């Protein structure tokens, strides 16, 4: 019997996303990833006495942009607050964040589920600064003897996006995260480099008996940085909570940490004791008044969002699945759109982009933005197939060659003499040879065995080294065989 026969899971997610600015939120230090430890720091982000933070305008712009893309209300008046806690990743002993007047609230996004579309509420999104990085002496956070601190990340701008507890299954959570990351990537609010930790998820999970409408006691597992960790962590946490409840005990409301190596969540209860943040307004920063003109200026810069893009592609004749794959990353969707401008057959283009093109990218370990061939080149190749200049089979070798050399399809076809033979007299010559060489199949066909024609077409293709136009061969063969 599955856990889900007895319990319903309720999940909400807090997502911390690094905003795509050049500099930190309150100082001019670079946000560049991968610098040597403690080289991207200054008196402001180190919290030295006597310094004053100044807010980066681009942080506000990106927060508004994300809010609009997530259907949020943008506050007319917003301010920063101090969230106080004593931990070595914060040099100031407080994090500058937003408490009661966040910049965005009451939004939503739509996910696809097995039962159709489902709206997931976004409670709020607020701006804050990232903390530093602690490198632990021991193997995990709970076994270390000493910690080393790198403040390069301290002050990197984040947007914390808080969802409503609207998700009821792991697949709904993953669909929400995928949608959210896609929207943030499309709007260029963030680079969304999950492997660099630029998006992190805190997962709140609780169980309640099926049929109950009351919320169960939840745990929050912090700092997950990949979809697969989220899935594994949730599987573990659901099973753990179910075991506690089955035994008639109560789940402890607490913060937990995910141990990737062991595949388990661990209690951080001792830190919980200090869960009293004593928020108060940040006296070093003046409030923001966001007039509607500012908001409308930013609305104008919003690109077509993934959902709208999927819809447009489906109107062009793509299946729901194909539209999903093409729009899964902004890079691929942009590539497809550029190619589509020069290509008439959307369906055929889709097959080539999702098929051989994607396969070659993977085989060569290059991302679509670094593709050695341009969208226009792929479009030209597809057009050559549609015009009958090359067959689909020949095109497979042409695209390989394009990938290796960067040459245009038409150049390769010309250089290698790959153009399809559509000249009837040339084809008839080959067809007559094949008919003469295969009397048995000719007999079969004439005796009514339709399938024999397939064999004969194959022989003609072979004799022409794949260059004969198959449709034309079929037609001519039937004529010659009477």
């Amino acid at each position, binding site marked *: 019997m599955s856990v889900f026969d007895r319990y319903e899971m309720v999940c909400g997610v807090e997502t911390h996303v690094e905003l795509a600015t050049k500099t930190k939120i309150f100082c001019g230090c670079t946000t560049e990833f991968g610098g040597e430890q403690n*080289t991207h720091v200054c008196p402001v982000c180190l919290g030295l006495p006597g310094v004053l933070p100044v807010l980066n305008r*681009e942080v506000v712009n990106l927060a508004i942009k994300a809010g609009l893309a997530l259907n949020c209300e943008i506050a007319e008046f917003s301010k920063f607050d101090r969230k106080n806690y004593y931990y070595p990743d914060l040099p100031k002993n407080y994090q500058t964040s937003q408490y009661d007047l966040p910049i965005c609230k009451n939004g939503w996004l739509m996910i696809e589920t097995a039962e159709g579309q489902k709206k997931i509420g976004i409670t709020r999104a607020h701006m804050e600064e990232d903390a530093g990085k602690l490198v632990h002496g021991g193997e995990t956070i709970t076994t270390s003897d000493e910690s080393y601190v790198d403040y390069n990340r301290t002050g990197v701008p984040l947007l914390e996006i808080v969802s409503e507890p609207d998700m009821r299954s792991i697949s709904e959570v993953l669909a929400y995260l995928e949608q959210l990351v896609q929207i943030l990537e499309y709007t260029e609010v963030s680079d969304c480099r999950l492997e660099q930790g630029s998006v992190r998820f805190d997962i709140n999970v609780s169980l309640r008996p099926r049929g109950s409408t009351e919320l169960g006691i939840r745990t929050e597992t912090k700092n997950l940085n990949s979809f697969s960790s989220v899935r594994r962590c949730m599987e573990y946490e659901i099973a753990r909570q179910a075991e506690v409840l089955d035994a008639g005990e109560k789940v402890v409301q607490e913060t937990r940490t995910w141990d990737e190596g062991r595949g388990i969540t661990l209690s951080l209860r001792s830190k919980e004791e200090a869960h*009293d943040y004593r928020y108060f307004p940040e006296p070093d920063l*003046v409030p923001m008044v966001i007039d509607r003109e500012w908001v409308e200026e930013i609305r104008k810069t919003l690109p077509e969002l993934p959902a709208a893009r999927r819809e447009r592609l489906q109107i062009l004749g793509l299946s729901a699945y194909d539209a999903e794959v093409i729009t899964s990353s902004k890079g691929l969707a942009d590539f497809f759109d550029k190619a589509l401008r020069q290509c008439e057959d959307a369906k055929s283009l889709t097959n080539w982009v999702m098929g051989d093109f994607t396969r070659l990218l993977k085989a060569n370990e290059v991302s679509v933005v670094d593709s050695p061939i341009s969208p226009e080149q792929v479009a030209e190749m597809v057009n050559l197939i549609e015009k009958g200049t090359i067959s689909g089979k020949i095109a497979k070798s042409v695209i390989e060659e394009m990938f290796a050399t960067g040459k245009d399809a038409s150049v390769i076809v010309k250089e290698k003499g790959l153009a399809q033979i559509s000249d009837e007299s040339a084809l008839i010559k080959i067809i007559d040879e094949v008919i003469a060489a295969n009397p048995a199949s000719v007999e079969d066909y004439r005796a009514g065995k339709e399938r024999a024609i397939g064999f004969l077409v194959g022989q003609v293709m072979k004799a022409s080294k794949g260059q004969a136009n198959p449709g034309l061969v079929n037609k001519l063969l039937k004529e010659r065989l009477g």
Partner: protein
Amino acid sequence: MKISRKDVEHVALLARLELTEQEIEQYTEQLDSILEYAATLDRLDTENVEPTAHAVPLHNVLRADEVKSSIEREKALQNSPDAEEGFYRVPRIV
């Protein structure tokens, strides 16, 4: 009393301060008189007054997103009690 001994112990724990018995007594008294004094403000009628977010009548003080040079690492680390290989070193946490 505006503040209890328990409050002082709690705040001290949050601030990672170790207080002696005598200090707890002393601070409870002192903090209480401070809060007592601040409570004078409670006498004002603030029924129709908007909450003040900031004492200075300014808003939207913003800067351009332009990189400025950071400080040298030696300088960043020079006032720290303990450092190693370019990192600040701190006692075991949790």
